């Protein structure tokens, strides 16, 4: 319908963006009637999203004919941004940014490097950057879930963890069940993506390839390739971030320091101080 009204692609894009954002806002308003308050976060996220993607679009336009190292630089910058986003989600976990950066860079970076080396990902900027960014954003989601789950598991099981410590257990041993749980839980979305591929969703990359006229069978196979790479990156990231974050919950004297904020105040909990 919109295509009839606009001949200019940019104007069309803006209107389409407005329509999509409007729908997102509508959902937010409906959520509000159910006492689920997402207004601020949704608005900020929408605005950020559009500004960021436009900036990236312009950058891509500029970098299209740039030297090869710009690709590496761009991917590195994406990893830092992903780590910062993830770390915000894990507020209260000490060293969340460092853990996130290490896990995302190693998780997504390994897969990108290996697959580029093997020739699965084309070295052209127009291919490496979008696919790399998908892997990074997937690693970021997994990392956020790992950290978030780890924090809530540890906060919910402080009594058991301290009991294990009080019995002479090493911190690693005391949190082992929760490290495992957060690692497993964070991989559920990546696993589901793999399971439901093609049935529930035809992902962006394949859609894009189809739109640009690629062979549908190759587009389909390549989509599987990217989802499998995403899973590999997610798996690496989850393993790393759960192992790295484990050390962040304890002091050098093997005391559980990652505790609910309320417990830090006297009388906030029976278990006493922070």
């Amino acid at each position, binding site marked *: 319908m919109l295509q009839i009204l606009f001949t200019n692609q940019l104007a069309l894009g803006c209107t389409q963006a407005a329509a999509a954002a409007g729908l997102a806002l509508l959902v937010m308003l409906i959520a509000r009637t159910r006492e689920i308050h997402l207004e601020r976060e949704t608005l900020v996220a929408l605005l950020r999203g559009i500004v960021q993607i436009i900036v990236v679009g312009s950058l891509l336009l500029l970098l299209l004919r740039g030297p090869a190292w710009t690709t590496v630089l761009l991917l590195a910058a994406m990893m830092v941004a992903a780590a910062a986003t993830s770390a915000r989600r894990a507020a209260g976990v000490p060293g969340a940014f*460092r853990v996130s950066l290490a896990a995302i860079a190693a998780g997504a970076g390994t897969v990108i490097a290996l697959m580029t080396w093997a020739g699965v990902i084309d070295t052209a900027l127009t291919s490496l950057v979008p696919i790399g960014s998908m892997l990074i954003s997937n690693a970021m989601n997994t990392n956020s879930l790992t950290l978030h789950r780890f924090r809530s598991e540890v906060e919910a099981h402080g009594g058991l963890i301290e009991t294990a410590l*009080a019995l002479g257990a090493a911190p690693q041993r005391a949190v082992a069940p929760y490290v495992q749980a957060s690692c497993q839980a964070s991989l559920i979305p990546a696993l589901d993506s793999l399971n439901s591929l093609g049935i529930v969703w035809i992902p962006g990359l394949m859609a894009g390839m189809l739109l640009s006229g690629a062979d549908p069978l190759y587009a389909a196979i390549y989509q599987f390739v990217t989802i499998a790479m995403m899973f590999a990156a997610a798996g690496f990231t989850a393993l790393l971030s759960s192992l790295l974050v484990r050390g962040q919950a304890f002091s050098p004297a093997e005391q559980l320091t990652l505790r609910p904020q309320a417990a830090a105040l006297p009388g906030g909990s029976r278990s006493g101080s922070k």
Partner: protein
Amino acid sequence: MLRSLKLFKTHRQALPRLAVSQGPQFSPSFLRASLLQTSSQEPVRTTGKQSYSAEPRPVLQTEHLSRIVSATRLVDDVSISVRAGEILAVLGPSGAGKSSFLRLLNRLDEPTRGTVYLAGQDYRQLAPRELRRRVGLVTQTPFLFPGTIADNLRFGPRQRGEDLPAETIALLLEQVGLAGRAERDTATLSGGEAQRVSLARALANSPTVLLLDEPTSALDDEAKAEVEALLGQIVRQHRLTCVMVSHDRAQAARLADRVMFLKGGRLEKIGPAREVMHVADTLH
């Protein structure tokens, strides 16, 4: 990334070596022997340099022990000493810092100032795991691990690579009144039973000091009386040095040799139970 990995490594290095308790005094056979022993021979023997000839050597001693969290003095300059085989009750109004004080004694929290001496040794020189093996804790709510009662009892020794023999498990369970129930799932236990398991689990580590944080306050009256009687009996039998937080003065009077009274994190009074209870009454 490198920095983070390095931090992680440093943290691991900061962790002490694994427990060094391979000596005969901690072996299960010793535990078994000590469990069977009921004679009143000299309690814990200490071999430090600075031994006092007149008084029994303090097993546990706090020196200006303080913990301050965001400008709140949870524990404020508490210096006490507990003699071998003694039961010291910690009393005080809620929020007085009783539990905070107890958590400092096995270093579950870090003192902001001051320290604790365990058999004359500054506990910061001990590996936390070894310290916590020697200073057992029974919490108000028993946090039992999923699995059987026996699994819970084996947990402590297993951390040091020791396997608690079935006879020792049977003996410990007999002592806490749960004979023959080693294979019961902990999910099916009543509050009183769970607290008994928690006690047996702490004992399985052969501690020299036992910390009790309101061990009966989460129980119903009947279980409370049973567990209290059991505690008194076990602490004497194992010749444990014991620090017990309580809000129940009558209980403190029944179990404790001495009582300390905390208020606003500060030590108000310490002395024989009868004496301090009187002071506490006049404070209100």
